[in-house]
């Protein structure tokens, strides 16, 4: 019953002791984490490590959105899922894994595809959003929804042997549309299912996403806003580059933008990007 005046039970002090010992983190940052809520969209390659580390560090309420089931061809990179969950919903499998690492947090399962019809409702329940999806229309939809709701967005991507990471819509920084006002041609939108991915590459990017979300939720450190991390696994090269700030002309977050909740709900992201929000994977013939 004693909480030492800092809101942490003795079990919590013991569990998080390595965080509490850190001069730059300590009790205040840990308390912030325990009170925070983070939504991870996608329990796949990026979501696997992001969810495990967010659960382990004590995020108070951790939401998971996914509508897929676990498949054998996920197992080479989606380390949150156990073979016994093959055929079962990824959300269920991921939630069980998170709780097995930290039973003291609150996990919320959103077993549905994110759509304009449910995104505002789901995303409005969280402080920070982590985009761990795998396609262009979802990325536009999630970023636009974060702008409408005023939520910071930790965005990661991985394909082949390469990865990218940045934080959007944070503290006056740019949104996804500031950088990419026009969608790329569909021929340039490769997916892991089509082009392959080395499993540990989304692992690295997903861990980095967890770190950025933790920094935002705990208000410790400088999040990767206005900067983008570029990772090339083959050569082990990493570049952190300076990107543009918020664009005054941005159709969603700019000065004269009129992108309302209603506009969002009516926006056709599949038509805008000319690609579907989810697809069946290519079959491999060797």
């Amino acid at each position, binding site marked *: 019953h004693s909480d030492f005046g800092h809101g942490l039970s003795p079990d919590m002090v013991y569990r998080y002791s390595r965080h509490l010992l850190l001069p730059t983190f300590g009790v205040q940052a840990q308390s912030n984490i325990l009170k925070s809520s983070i939504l991870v969209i996608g329990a796949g*390659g990026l979501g696997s490590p992001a969810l495990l580390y967010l659960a382990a560090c004590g995020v108070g309420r951790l939401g998971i959105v996914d509508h897929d089931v676990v498949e054998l061809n996920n197992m080479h990179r989606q380390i949150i899922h156990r073979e016994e969950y093959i055929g079962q919903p990824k959300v269920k499998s991921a939630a069980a894994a998170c709780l097995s690492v930290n039973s003291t947090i609150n996990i919320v399962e959103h077993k549905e595809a994110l759509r304009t019809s449910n995104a505002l409702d789901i995303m409005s329940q969280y402080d920070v959003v982590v985009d761990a999806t795998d396609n262009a229309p979802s990325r536009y939809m999630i970023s636009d929804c974060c702008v409408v709701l005023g939520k910071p967005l930790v965005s990661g*991507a991985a394909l082949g042997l*390469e990865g990218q990471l940045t934080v959007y819509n944070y503290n006056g920084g740019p949104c996804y549309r500031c950088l990419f*006002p026009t969608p790329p*041609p569909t021929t340039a*939108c*490769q997916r892991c299912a089509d082009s392959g991915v080395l499993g540990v590459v989304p692992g690295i990017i997903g861990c980095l996403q967890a770190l950025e979300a933790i920094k935002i939720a705990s208000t410790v450190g400088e999040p990767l806003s206005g900067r983008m991390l570029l990772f090339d696994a083959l050569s082990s090269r990493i570049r952190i580059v300076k990107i543009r700030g918020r664009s005054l002309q941005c159709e969603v977050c700019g000065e004269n933008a009129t992108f309302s909740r209603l506009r969002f709900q009516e926006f056709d992201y599949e038509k805008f990007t000319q690609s579907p929000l989810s697809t069946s994977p290519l079959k491999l013939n060797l």
Partner: protein
Amino acid sequence: MGMAYGHNHAWESVFSFPIGGLELLCDSVKIHNVNVEPQDGAKKLDMKDLLTWVRGNLIKERPEMFMKGDTVRPGILVLVNDCDWELSGQLTTTLEDKDVVVFISTLHGG
């Protein structure tokens, strides 16, 4: 616009295509160290000249995967010395000796 390896007016631009799939367009050669001379006797080389040169000399297949009109296609970020070219004037960005220009194709996978 041509290539020059001499010492006079030899503009060396280091091209990197390290991240994002553009290597497909460049015969899997990810880093190009090239010398490009300014056009029409101009003193300075700018990004517009460079894109024209890249299109003519490096991008052999499917130029639409790299360019659209006079500029790069949507979904490509251009970085001059690790800085978004939006911050330096896009096509009008002037290039100097040893500048590093990187083209990044944004990824969507996960």
